[in-house]
């Protein structure tokens, strides 16, 4: 990226003076072009972000006759010490971490495996690729509805029926979403179904950009396919894999749509699937405790920032993605 910028700017430097003089009538064109977007970002991103910080120091409700009251760090301390709150919030954080710890490696490896699988010129590959890419266009709300039926409890549920069929009735039917031990796992599978092809496409693009000469050199060295994969492919796409892992980590913390939809319909065990985002919405929107939810939002943002900083640092270490 950086080299590109320099290449384009360097030759422009000597003639810089002339066009800017010629464009003196358009002195405001630059800021003018940027202003609608900047205005939008200021109002709908920067302002609420700052507001979240401010609100987190108040006890405040929406449409309440009581005025907002400054409480300092109370919302934060309560979040970690108040027994009722701390347990629930800690649980939600833990669920997000669990989700990330499972999904990030599994989805990154799956994305790589799928990319390798479809990165071969075979007849009919277009059709297979189409099938694999399809879930990509599915909104999460719809995904949750379909999988809710797949996971249905009782032996008429699709997954239960399939498992029962292949085990010859040996596996008894299971309440996948309702049982606390399998609820989060079930949500993980549906999330991977919906989003792994996104990551896979990114990895596929990287695979195709590994120079073929490297493979030729490796096969001259009599390296077998597996050795080629480990010594040529993986190092060649290392940065992309890191990028994919980190965006998946961020996705894991943003987890909301599927869980909220399913918990509203009462078909999922709440405690084991609650996330930071569903807590924020439950607290701030459903229970109108805006100040408390704002404090959660700030903590959520801190987590995202830390992940983003790690991503930058790792990318820079290797000389940019």
């Amino acid at each position: 990226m950086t080299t590109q910028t320099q290449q384009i700017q360097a030759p422009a430097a000597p003639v810089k003076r002339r066009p800017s003089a010629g464009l003196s009538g358009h002195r405001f064109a630059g800021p003018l072009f940027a202003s609608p977007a900047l205005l939008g970002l200021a109002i709908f991103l920067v302002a609420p972000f700052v507001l979240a910080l401010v609100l987190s120091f108040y006890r405040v409700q929406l449409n309440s006759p009581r005025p907002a009251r400054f409480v300092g760090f109370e919302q934060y301390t309560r979040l970690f010490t108040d027994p009722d709150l701390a347990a629930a919030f800690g649980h939600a954080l833990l669920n997000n971490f669990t989700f990330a710890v499972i999904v990030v490696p599994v989805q990154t490896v799956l994305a790589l495996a799928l990319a390798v699988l479809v990165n071969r010129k075979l007849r009919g590959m277009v059709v297979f690729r189409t099938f694999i890419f399809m879930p990509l266009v599915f909104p999460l709300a719809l995904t949750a509805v379909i999988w809710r039926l797949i996971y249905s409890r009782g032996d008429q549920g699709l997954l239960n029926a399939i498992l029962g069929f292949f085990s010859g009735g040996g596996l008894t039917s299971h309440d996948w979403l309702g049982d606390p031990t399998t609820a989060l796992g079930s949500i993980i599978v549906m999330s991977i179904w919906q989003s792994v092809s996104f990551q896979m496409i990114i990895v596929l693009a990287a695979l195709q950009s590994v120079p073929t000469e490297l493979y030729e050199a490796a096969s001259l060295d009599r390296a077998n396919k597996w050795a080629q994969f480990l010594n040529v492919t993986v190092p060649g796409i290392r940065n992309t894999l890191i990028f994919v892992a980190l965006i998946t980590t961020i996705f894991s913390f943003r987890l909301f749509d599927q869980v909220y939809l399913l918990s509203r319909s009462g078909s999922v065990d709440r405690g084991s699937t609650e996330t930071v985002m569903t807590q924020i919405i439950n607290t701030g929107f459903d229970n109108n405790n805006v100040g408390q939810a704002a404090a959660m939002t700030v903590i959520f943002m801190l987590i995202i920032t830390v992940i983003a900083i790690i991503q930058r640092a790792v990318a820079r270490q290797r000389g940019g993605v």
Partner: protein
Amino acid sequence: MAMSKTVKPGRRGGSMKRTRRWQTALHYLILTVVSLFFFLPVYYLIVGSFRPSAEVLSGISGFVPTNLSLDNYTGVFEHLGSEATGYFGQFAAVSILVTTAVVAGSLVVNSMAAYSFARMQWRGKKIIFLLVIVLTIIPFEAVALPLYFMFSGQRDTIFIQAIPFIANAFSIFLFYTFFLDVPGEIEEAARLDGAGPFRTFFQVVVPITKPAFATVAILTFLAQWGSYLWPVLMVSDPTVRPLPLAISIFQNQQPPEWGQVLAFGTMFIVPVLAVFLVFQRWFVASISSSAVKG
């Protein structure tokens, strides 16, 4: 392969060909299993939408396309037939309107900003661009609640469903990377012809950077068509309810009519699937270029 030692040198090629063929067969087998995992839920959605509600949840026979009819579709329109429940057509209209407004608006606004950052000289540009890059890490989830607090007076309007998503830092960044590659001579020529910045941008730069516009359009469309969190907070009136929120409410009705829920879902996704099948190459290209972040 222990076998290959015993094979005569002359026939080695034949055995390699044979293993190659086995490998290909295995490859196809894995591809089929994987494709089934991704496709079966889609198939189940579409086939189930044509089957009697009672047979949607009936074990493996839920997959078998028997007793097909349009009853679920007429059922959806009957079920959603009053002001109180909202109308399917209305939900779809809201989604189409909001998504179109966001996609169109974001193409104009973000491309102009990106062009300004990539190709124009003005004071403070560098620092502001840096800020925009920093903003790309803030996900919408982080501002949803305070935004709801700010605009609670605008609840249940079409306007508030669309406006927050038009300006987008990541779209600006994507456009920026594309505009950097535009050769400077082209703009210089336009300038010598007496074109101002507006004409240079809209008549010269935009036509040669169509892939950038396609990329941002597709990524924005996918995010917006499925937008759920913001409508949860901002919409309670059925007349301005978009499809994702509508299906989440519809699937909760008692007693459950699963065939109708699947018919609703099919109408929600089939137009998008059709567009995807036609423009698959573009979808894939836009997603892979979303990884240029660095």
